[in-house]
């Protein structure tokens, strides 16, 4: 018999579940999906905040993509609609191509060392992890001073101890500014190291025991047990590292006072986006850049996910089957 005013237990549980997630639902609508759709709209407008946005269709997108065929014919960046946009993309990819592999390599090797039973291992772990918790303005200001070619400590060390005659000008030299930022980022390698360490500790020891019984030596145990078991973590760090590079901002803003200099050599994508939005108040164009960034991140993430079938090994999953 149907009793009005009474609802079933299952229905009550359902409603309670929805009730508890209300804060997130509101936040998602107001702070995520609403702004996302607005910025998609702004990307088709001219908008300087003061005047209401005016619809310009694909103008902002055309500004970015105009002149690409001519560029491939002439090789002259001036024919591009916005050569600075492409410069910022190039800077970002250049940084990623140096920083991501080096970061991956160093943090993985470090994690393997820190996973050994050696005296004082907790002290070593603490020291290597420390830089990643203080990352930000203070540390960047410190590195600015260490890397300073005239007053800093690094170049005298390179000259007097390693005997390098012409040490680079680091952040003051357009050719060395990005490598200088890579160097800074490597100091914080402990942040990804700790994720690898957690992964290494999650590898069941019976796998190693089985390998030993089969007569595998240390290298074979690494290559056939440790490495395959670690690929999901490598994969995770790779995805996050790439997304992080496209959002790289604080260090380069502090190091160059927001200019991206010298000669735009450190004008990262996110910094150029910031300049368009909050220096030139070209909100329409900045929104276009934000959406292109979103699409780049989406595509790259999807690519890594797709390719991961070939090289990421998940325990309990048959190889080659997805």
């Amino acid at each position, binding site marked *: 018999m149907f009793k009005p005013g009474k609802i079933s237990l299952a229905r009550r549980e359902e409603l309670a579940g929805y009730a508890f997630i209300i804060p997130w639902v509101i936040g998602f609508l107001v702070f995520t999906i609403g702004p996302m759709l607005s910025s998609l709209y702004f990307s088709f407008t001219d908008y300087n905040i003061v005047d209401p946005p005016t619809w310009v269709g694909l103008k902002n997108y055309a500004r970015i993509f105009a002149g690409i065929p001519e560029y491939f014919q002439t090789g002259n960046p001036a024919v591009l609609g916005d050569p600075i946009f492409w410069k910022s993309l190039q800077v970002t990819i250049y940084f990623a191509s140096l920083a991501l592999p080096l970061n991956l390599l160093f943090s993985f090797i470090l994690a393997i060392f820190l996973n050994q039973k050696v005296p004082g291992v907790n002290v070593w772990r603490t020291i290597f992890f*420390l830089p990643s918790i203080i990352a930000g303005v203070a540390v960047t200001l410190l590195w600015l001073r260490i890397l300073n070619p005239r007053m800093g400590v690094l170049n005298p060390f390179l000259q007097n101890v390693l005997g390098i005659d012409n040490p680079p000008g680091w952040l003051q030299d357009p050719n060395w500014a990005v490598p200088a930022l890579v160097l800074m980022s490597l100091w914080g390698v402990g942040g990804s190291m*700790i994720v690898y360490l957690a992964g290494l500790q999650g590898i069941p020891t019976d796998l190693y025991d089985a390998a030993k019984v089969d007569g595998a030596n240390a290298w074979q145990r690494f290559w056939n047990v440790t490495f395959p078991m670690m690929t999901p973590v490598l994969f995770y760090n790779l995805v996050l590292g790439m997304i992080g590079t496209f959002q790289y901002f604080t260090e380069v*803003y502090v190091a160059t006072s927001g200019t991206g200099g010298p000669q735009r050599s450190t004008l990262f994508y996110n910094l150029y986006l910031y300049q368009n939005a909050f220096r030139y108040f070209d909100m329409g164009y900045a929104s276009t850049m934000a959406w292109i960034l979103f699409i780049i991140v989406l595509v790259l993430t999807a690519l890594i996910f797709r390719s991961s079938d070939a090289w990421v090994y998940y325990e309990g999953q048959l190889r080659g089957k997805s």
Partner: protein
Amino acid sequence: MNLFRRLFGGIKANELFFKGITTLILAAGSVIIMIPLAFMISTSLKDPAQLRSDANTLIPRKPQTVQINGESFNLYSVTVDGETRTMAMIKKAPGGMALFADSTTPDQTVELKLNEQTPLYRLDIHWENYPEALGSMPFFTYLGNTMLVTFIGMFGMLFSSSLVAYGFSRFRARWLNVLFLILLATVMLPSQVRLIPLYIFFQKLGWVNTLLPLIVPQFFANAYDVFLLRQFFMTIPLELDDAAKIDGANPLQILLYIILPQARPALVSVSIFHFLYAWNDFYEPLIFLHTKENWTLAVGLQTFDALYTINTHLIMAISVLMIIPPILLFFFAQKIFTQGVVFSGVKG
């Protein structure tokens, strides 16, 4: 070889060798990691004069001097006729030479090659750099703003994310799984894609150049924290909930009295990570805060550097002060970082 075996009984020789090498590499790496921090601290204690003449020395120091007839001369350790003596450098001479003399007999000079003699230094620690640095910028205003953003935001995050994580971990409903996938997807979302409309939205509300845009969104749950808390809540046995239900507890009471006390380690870790994020955040404060009295430490310090970059000793002093709270927290909660709950979610 026999002796070696007897000394190291059970341990195999190559294992011992391997451990030795590992320790050596780790120690060397640790030194490299710590040198920049050591420089930060030592620079904050240096005399600005040392930063111009003798910047590459880790130790805050200044040349030892001696007064001769009311004039001050630098002291050197010099070698005269195979004998090492302490002498004052009276005057530089052409050809990289200099005139040295004993401070009691300044007229009897000897001419020696300047770069073969060792200047004498004494320790010179300038604690007063700290009060000077604090006086040269509205440090306590910045600190107050940073703490408001950090701690109110942390409270909001804990409050909202626990509710949401509870909703996602303890109830069966048709759409919850789909919504949870959407929540996970937002972790990947670059914040730029929503930043500009948010800025305009907050400007319309009159919130730009207040701390509200940094605080209020925290009260609407954060995908990352919800995910971590939910993963932890799932490990708490359902029998506890059932027992409480039989005693007549409603879902909110179960969360408050059963789940949250059990989930202490997870709550502590998300709090710590929120603290570090909010304390070090630069991007959003830079965008939303426009005038000095509203800045957080990160923005205030960057602006101070842009204006007075020559005052390296003061900037490093503020930098030291700014990294002390995260470091203290780190040492108190070391276990959570180095073997933490937090990273268990990424295992394959």
